[in-house]
């Protein structure tokens, strides 16, 4: 009998839907959508075997623009939904995506605990340091002196959240930073993140040209990480805390065992559990 390898090949287009994005012209998220679909094609994962989960915000609109199984939930709760999917269906490839407000402010507790729990999934945050969907308010990653928001006209006066340092401290197993303007480089980061076991966190600098037009300059500010990724958390911490925030590439690779409870039945039926009640 002739054995033929039937590993189907996919193109990025196979992962895109026909739904037209709500994003503004020039938004970095278009390119991130391209990077995600390219990464899935590179990995040759059947679209029906991928679950892509998001919360609320501009970037959280992303699942509907793909042709995988998507879930567009409520604000800040993408990670718990993704956790429920992966733990109950470990054979699926699970990706959570969203923005900096969704992930680091309203969803901050889930971010910390998802890093700590280390379920085998990938979390992609499109960070533009602003709430875009609500028309331009400061987010947890906004600089303290950004004065363009009607809500905080004198600036927030508080230092920004450092998502990569928090991710490392909380136990994320893979940490990378990318730039939406480099679609192929970002696709490569996402590919590596999906391949890496455990919780992989990818921060993508994705400019908001509407409320933060100065972010157009990011393309001139990003630069590849000068050194190879480390598996030493102490070294990674020092690097993450001292870099300029535009250092892109894989920055940390851990080797912690992913969280995946056994799903092996030891009884034949529910009736076997009832014996404990019998007097």
């Amino acid at each position: 009998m002739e054995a033929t390898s039937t590993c189907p090949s996919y193109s990025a287009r196979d992962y895109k839907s026909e739904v037209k994005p709500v994003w503004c012209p020039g938004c970095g998220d278009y390119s991130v959508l391209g990077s995600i679909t390219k990464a899935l094609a590179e990995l040759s994962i059947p679209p029906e075997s991928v679950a892509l989960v998001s919360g609320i915000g501009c970037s959280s609109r992303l699942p509907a623009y793909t042709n995988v199984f998507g879930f567009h939930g409520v604000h800040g709760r993408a990670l718990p939904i993704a956790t429920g999917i992966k733990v109950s269906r470990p054979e699926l490839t699970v990706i959570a995506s969203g923005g900096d407000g969704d992930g680091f402010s309203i969803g901050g507790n889930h971010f910390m605990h998802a890093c700590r729990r280390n379920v085998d999934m990938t979390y992609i945050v499109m960070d533009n340091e602003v709430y875009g969907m609500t028309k331009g308010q400061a987010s947890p990653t906004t600089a303290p002196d950004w004065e363009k928001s009607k809500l905080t006209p004198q600036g927030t006066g508080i230092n920004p959240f450092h998502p990569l340092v928090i991710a490392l401290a909380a136990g994320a197993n893979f940490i990378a930073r990318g730039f939406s303007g480099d679609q192929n480089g970002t696709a490569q980061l996402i590919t590596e993140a999906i391949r890496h076991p455990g919780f992989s966190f990818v921060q993508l600098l994705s400019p908001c040209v509407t409320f933060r037009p100065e972010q157009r300059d990011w393309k001139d500010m990003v630069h590849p990480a000068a050194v190879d990724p480390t598996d030493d958390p102490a070294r990674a911490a020092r690097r993450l805390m001292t870099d300029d925030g535009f250092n892109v590439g894989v920055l940390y690779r851990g080797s912690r065992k992913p969280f995946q409870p056994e799903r092996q039945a030891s009884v034949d039926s529910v009736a076997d559990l009832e014996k404990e009640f019998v007097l």
Partner: protein
Amino acid sequence: MTARSVSITFAGSGGAGVMTAGNMLLDAAGRAGWYAYMTRSSGAQIRGGEAAAMMRLSTSPVQSHDDHFDVLVAIDWQNVGRFSAEIPMTTDGLVLGDPDGGEFPEQIGAKGARSADIPFKKMAKEIEGGRPNMIALGAVAGLVGLPEDAVLGVVRDSLAKKGEAARTASEASVRAGMAFAAGLPACPRLAAAEGQSERLWSITGNEAAGLGAVRGGIRFVAAYPITPGTEVLEWLAPNLAKLGGVLVQAEDELASINQIIGASYAGVPSLTATSGPGLALMTESLGLAVASETPITVVNVMRGGPSTGIPVKSEQSDLNIALYGLHGDAPHLVVAPNSLADCAFSTQWAVHLADSLQTAAIVLSDQSLGQSRATIAPPADPGLRAIRLMPEGEAAERYRRYTNTASGVSPMAVPGMKGYQYTADGLEHNEYGTPSSAAADHSAQLDKRLRKLAAHDYGQHWADIEGDGDIAVLTWGSTTGPVREALERFRASGGRARLVSIRLISPVRPEQLAAALAGVSRVLVVEQSHGAQFHRYLRAHYDLPGSVRAFHRPGPLPIRPNEIFRQLADWS
């Protein structure tokens, strides 16, 4: 003097073994063919402090307390006085205490009950390794007439792992207590047990809810601890694992409800359990389950509210938030067990309905059901399962996840089904699931989500209807127990009245209730809430015939059968 029901409270300081004695008495009564029911009360201390095991033994099934207690046994008197309001007694009652057990509380003395001494400490010292609580167990067993074999059998089995010495000491203590009881003032003895054809179960309402969940097919649970819902989760943790299911402890209630939404979206029937404050945190995502049509079940074990309220005491005051807490027009299921044993059926039914109708179901249990233990006839598995309508065959065209069917229920694909990819959405959407703010899409999807619930045939389970007559008592949940008992007394006194205990709180069943109340000219509404939440709910959704009275009171004290009986008798 024999009685069909005898009520006993064991009380004492923490570590005195009050709960152990209560559990053993319950098990012994169950083995000897009597029914038993037990609630527990404790001080605010995490460990130690005072505790009380409140028991009722009966010849017939019993899942609520009587009007008063026949016997109060205090192993010591430290702070037992603070339980006084929870231990009503008449002058016929009997208070047993140790003269060396500390100062006799004046609140207990004020009850005017008979009293007698049992020198627990002295007696225990005379037995090698003797235990005062086992002497108390023996004394109560002797007083009410439980057979020695049944008590000693339970003691032996319970202490099997503690070694020969502990077992012998406890047996000797029980025997000493039984011997001492012969010289105590008489109290009602239990009438002979009516023959049971099958062995009874000892189970709590929270365990029963867990059993109902797995019988219904729940295989994923996300958990965040909260009193008094925690034991549902603690029972499920090892038992789900045995079934090949998974329980994940979440970081908060926002995570737990979203984890179960995720697991259910992935095709695994999913549930969480919580209590009032947790339910409040979950309401936003309950709306997500409704809008995205993702089946989930949330067991809410009610406690005194608002805010942190009274975590260890029961109240039926989460009815409003369960019904109306969701923003937007969000039809969903609210199912209420009306007895400890019914926690199994109602939870299983809710799981079945949630999956059948692809929506969120809230099970409204409460502390008095959940944390009480009873011996019950084994509840048969009614066979209700979480079965979901799924698309069949290959997808011919672009999959319409939210297709507007006649029933309102649309075939739901799960990840892995090739060609059926879609995005579930909490944003209003069209039939494909694509976000839409168009008026036509909004009204079509609102209609569909309402229709699938309203048009479903819920059969006879929507309410328990018993008896006849032109007076009806309308109630729900845990107050059904005392109402049933009040109605038995009312009928025994020559009255005629019917019970309607509504299990399906939402969606409402106005036609069915109208039929159940046909010929009724007086309606008594009974509930345990300060704000008469159930009465207001009935007024909003149902036509109530004739004159209506509402008997409502907040927790923490349980509503007693006699209070309801007086309402009926005085109205006749």
